[in-house]
């Protein structure tokens, strides 16, 4: 949907909020105040599946580093990778898949080696009460059970394909959605009986759906890499944010959202 195209929650780099800091100390525009502290705006390009957790982590980072402001650009990882390689002014890239991170590193836009900060795996999202009694992947092949998968071109679809292949389950979905939220929406609206989505997405939608864990999902665990970018307008801020995402408080937020530690 529009989400993958649009730039959301994007603050200006030279917004009124940080102008005061820059006048006080010129290097602040580079993100490092005179005493070595981090300052200024940190622009983080993060995968859509990080929406809830990175919103919280961003706020916590601002609280831990007074004078900083985190602006998030949330979209599909491949769209973000394209934007970065086309010269979008980003400080940090957090991707939902190593493949999209590789697009950025191969273009020479990563400052250092990306580090994995979280892992995600698939669950079967079903309506509350699990009316079809789905407990395993094989249950999805029963006649009359309508299933939504993500398209193979997006990470959740690639993971679904790997998982189904490893489990030897031949499944004919009714639709191949363009992202994981689309697949989840079809369950929420009652148009399908089940969808393969990430555990974090099922948890974020826990008001409407239940996530059924299944053994084979361990066969397609998704790594989330993060990296500071070469052309970061705020390199000190970028490095500080990447370090913060690996810290205990940020990892606790990610765990609560359903991510596994790397």
């Amino acid at each position: 949907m529009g989400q993958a195209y649009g730039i959301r929650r994007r603050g200006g780099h030279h917004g009124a909020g940080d102008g005061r800091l820059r006048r006080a100390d010129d290097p602040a525009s580079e993100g490092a105040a005179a005493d070595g502290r981090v300052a200024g705006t940190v622009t983080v390009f993060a995968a859509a599946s990080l929406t809830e957790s990175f919103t919280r982590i961003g706020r916590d980072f601002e609280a831990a580093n007074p004078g900083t402001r985190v602006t998030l650009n949330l979209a599909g990882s491949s769209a973000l990778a394209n934007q970065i390689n086309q010269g979008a002014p980003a400080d940090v890239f957090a991707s939902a898949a190593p493949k999209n991170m590789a697009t950025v590193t191969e273009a020479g836009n990563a400052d250092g080696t990306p580090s994995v900060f979280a892992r995600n795996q698939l669950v079967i999202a079903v309506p509350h009460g699990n009316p079809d009694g789905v407990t395993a992947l094989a249950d999805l092949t029963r006649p009359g059970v309508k299933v939504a998968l993500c398209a193979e071109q997006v990470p959740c679809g690639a993971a679904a394909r790997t998982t189904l292949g490893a489990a030897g389950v031949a499944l004919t979905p009714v639709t191949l959605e363009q992202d994981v939220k689309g697949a989840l929406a079809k369950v929420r609206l009652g148009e399908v009986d089940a969808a393969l989505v990430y555990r974090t997405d099922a948890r974020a939608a826990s008001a409407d759906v239940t996530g059924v864990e299944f053994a084979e999902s361990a066969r397609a665990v998704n790594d989330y890499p993060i990296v500071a970018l070469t052309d970061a307008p705020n390199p000190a801020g970028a490095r500080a944010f990447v370090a913060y995402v690996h810290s205990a408080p940020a990892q606790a937020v990610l765990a609560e959202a359903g991510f596994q530690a790397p």
Partner: protein
Amino acid sequence: MSRVLDTVAPRRRGRVPAALLIPAGLGLLFLVLPLAGLVLRAPWTTLPQRLTAPGALTALRLSVQTATLATVFCLLLGVPLAWLLARVEFPGRRLVRALVTVPLVLPPVVGGVALLLVFGRRGLLGGWLDATFGVTLPFTTAGVVLAESFVAMPFLVIAVEGALRAADHRYEEAAATLGAGRWTTFTHVTLPLVAPGLAAGAVLCWARALGEFGATITFAGNYPGRTQTMPLAVYLALETDLESAIVLSLVLLVVSVGILVALRDRWMTSA
């Protein structure tokens, strides 16, 4: 010729003022440059392979079929609706006309969700259709036609209504005095009278249906051969393969421009 696509013949009185010419030129560039970008970035060497890839042709065929069916559906319901709005006085007519144009401004994704709430498995009508006839529309080709029609029909209704209002009433009145009923007058006098406007509306409607994305993917989902139209294929190709996405977009561009030109020669030259 209908009012909608009508162009006034240029009057050769004095020079064109720069204050109009410059923004006009910029406007034209703004519309044409992105298309030129597509053409320039197209991978011409691998074009034949990408074009004949089975997925591309399947999506193109489905797109043309569904856009055509949607246009037929819109003609069957939209022309009578336009006639009602143009020819019959009834209370609330202005409100009805406003309602007809709502899909024009509604984000298509919202249109798709709205369709699901009515025609979906749990929808107001969809639940009844499923229980009574075992018919479900989401995830079917019929669902694609429905989604495209919802988004495209206002174009047709507005064009035809404009043509009807512009048409001379006296021919219809003459037909009536000669003993023709309202239906005979409609089919033998009114329709031929507004044929160019009808054609223009149908072409606009078809073109809009061909490019429809949001309502389709929301209501009908995405499955190759069944509901994956060209715009959906383009969107997914963008995730992994920019060049394929460009090729698919070019095909869509060529098909729509080709049809618009063909129909223009045939229907719309006599302004």
